[in-house]
């Protein structure tokens, strides 16, 4: 056996069984009885007792049937794959146990074709009490399903040793244990007849994604089709199947794109691409769930944090991944990511290397976020127009390889911002499909026309306002002049352009003339040395020596 290091710190645990999606072949009563029996198996070898409560209240262990991605970290994959999963002990979702509604559940002890719900429930409740998978293939905590006689079921010694390592033996160990001894049942107050719990015929609308995020462990939802059920699913004409066809990257309209470990990742629906040097890598697009298991479809934004972790945003929730593994406890509400960030949605996020701050974009505003203090800076949000003429709600932001430029993406277009000059580059937007995805023939968007001809001729000048010094490389939010307001962000940008332009001209002049003067000085010096050597006579001592030698010879 193996332990997770987590255990319940009390001996009386409550549970409830949700009656949605109960297998119609079993019905609510038989299903509930099987689960109660499974609880009884564990209570018979431990001091634990379990009390059933009506669904809807706060309980320690919630049991439900679901299919596909159902609001937690795991996917169900239809018949024949993953049967169930359970959370380990802990507050919140600890102990909750989910069964895949698509499996051929049975409680017929003689039928070895189906999947016996009782046996699986015993296994999952082992997880709910703190057991990991066992390496003993004969144990009920072995990871795979194996039929055994459910009527005369008894735990393997390995399972008993594991659970008793955590909780000890039962208190009244001298009494012969029975399966139902330690289970008390409070009848559910809500009507839960098998008729109500029996799912109706497949509803094509159920397969459409729900735009509103559901909290973890809310009513199980079957609308998000897993990649596995997508290929093996029973109904090939539902909209979900059409949606499952891999899209073409040249269609654009991505949910978001970001750089992770220096490579571009493009997300759309339930798919993502990896793009390297203007080319999509082989075997892409790939379903998001293959790599980031537990991440939902249609994500809003993603970025690589300064500590190397990946952060994904969707609606008012966020996920934290270490490489491909979600960290425990996620998703969490957006407001828990840090103080002051937009709590309803994030359109784009970027860790901005030049000043080592993180920027969040939402609507027509942006926030500067300090990862150390986990809070946004004061004076934020600010208008997004400080980054140039990028549209509201950009769907991606990323840095160039050398960190000199920031790119913003939306639709099929991208905009470039010069980080050194802290101004938006001209000639944008351009087609991201053409320049980054290698889509030949993608139409080029019209660059934004400059509405002010005066500005076009003399960019950055603003009559009546003197230029102010800037702090290059500190981000566009640093160019706010004292006394200026948030109401005229474009004027702020123009002012920055004026200062940077005049400074750059002086710098260019100095950089051209200084080397020329240096070269001229060197030439003059060389000429002077040559002239001096030509005019100079041999040293007197040498002449004398030469004469004396001649005499001597």
């Amino acid at each position: 056996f193996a332990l997770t290091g987590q255990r319940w710190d009390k001996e009386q645990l409550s549970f409830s069984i949700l009656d949605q999606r109960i297998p119609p072949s079993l019905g609510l009563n038989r299903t509930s009885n099987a689960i109660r029996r499974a609880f009884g198996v564990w209570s018979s070898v431990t001091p634990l007792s379990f009390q059933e409560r009506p669904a809807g209240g706060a309980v320690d262990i919630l049991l439900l049937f679901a299919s596909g991605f159902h609001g937690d970290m795991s996917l169900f994959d239809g018949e024949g794959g993953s049967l169930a999963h359970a959370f380990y002990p802990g507050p919140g979702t600890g102990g909750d146990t989910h069964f895949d509604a698509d499996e051929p559940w049975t409680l017929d002890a003689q039928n070895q074709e189906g999947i016996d719900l009782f046996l699986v429930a015993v296994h999952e409740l082992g997880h709910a009490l703190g057991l990991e998978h066992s390496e003993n293939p004969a144990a009920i905590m072995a990871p795979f399903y194996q039929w055994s006689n459910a009527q005369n079921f008894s735990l393997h010694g390995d399972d008993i040793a594991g659970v008793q390592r955590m909780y000890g033996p039962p208190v009244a160990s001298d009494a012969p244990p029975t399966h139902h001894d330690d289970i008390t049942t409070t009848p559910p107050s809500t009507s839960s007849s098998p008729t109500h719990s029996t799912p109706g015929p497949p509803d094509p609308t159920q397969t459409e994604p729900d735009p509103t995020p559901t909290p973890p462990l809310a009513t199980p939802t079957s609308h998000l089709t897993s990649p596995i059920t997508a290929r093996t699913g029973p109904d090939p004409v539902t909209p979900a199947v059409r949606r499952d066809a891999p899209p073409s990257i040249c269609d654009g309209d991505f949910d978001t794109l970001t750089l992770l470990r220096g490579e571009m990742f493009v997300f759309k629906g339930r798919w993502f691409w990896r793009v390297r040097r203007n080319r999509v890598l082989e075997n892409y697009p790939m379903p998001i769930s293959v790599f980031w298991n537990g991440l939902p479809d249609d994500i809003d934004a993603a970025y690589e944090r300064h500590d190397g972790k990946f952060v994904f945003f969707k609606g008012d929730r966020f996920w934290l991944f270490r490489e491909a593994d979600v960290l425990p406890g996620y998703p969490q509400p957006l407001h828990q990511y840090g103080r002051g960030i937009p709590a309803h949605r994030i359109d784009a996020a970027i860790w901005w290397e030049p000043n080592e701050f993180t920027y969040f974009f939402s609507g027509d505003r942006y926030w500067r976020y300090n990862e150390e203090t986990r809070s946004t800076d004061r004076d934020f949000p600010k208008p997004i127009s400080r980054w140039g003429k990028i549209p509201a709600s950009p769907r991606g932001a990323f840095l160039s390889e050398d960190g000199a430029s920031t790119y913003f993406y939306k639709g099929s277009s991208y905009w470039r911002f010069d980080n050194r000059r802290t101004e938006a580059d001209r000639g944008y937007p351009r087609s991201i499909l053409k320049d980054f995805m290698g889509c030949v023939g993608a139409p080029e968007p019209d660059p934004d026309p400059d509405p002010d001809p005066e500005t076009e001729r003399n960019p950055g000048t603003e009559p009546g306002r003197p230029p102010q010094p800037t702090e290059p490389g500190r981000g566009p939010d640093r160019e706010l002049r004292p006394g200026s307001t948030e109401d005229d962000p474009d004027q702020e940008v123009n002012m920055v352009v004026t200062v940077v332009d005049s400074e750059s001209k002086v710098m260019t002049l100095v950089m051209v003339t200084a080397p020329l003067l240096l070269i001229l000085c060197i030439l003059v010096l060389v000429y002077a040395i040559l002239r001096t050597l030509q005019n100079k006579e041999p040293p007197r001592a040498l002449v004398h020596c030469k004469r004396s030698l001649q005499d001597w010879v």
Partner: protein
Amino acid sequence: SAETPDEENFNPEEWLRRFGYLSRSGLQMSGPLSVQILSRAVSDMQRVYGLDPTGRLDGATLAAMRRPRCALPDRTPEAGEVRTRR
């Protein structure tokens, strides 16, 4: 098409990743896995499943992989060092 357990699309490597026998971060790598890494993961899986740990993806091993099972991984993700941006 790596994660489907049906006959046509079954991918043992993805199965090993999914249930913790191979690091999921390995998907970041472009090249194929080394024989040693794959063999070690298969041996690990065979041991848990009560098979002879040969490290070879033989028929019995593939059949075991296709068996219905619990969705929780058998091995927790490695808690090794993660490369940072710089």
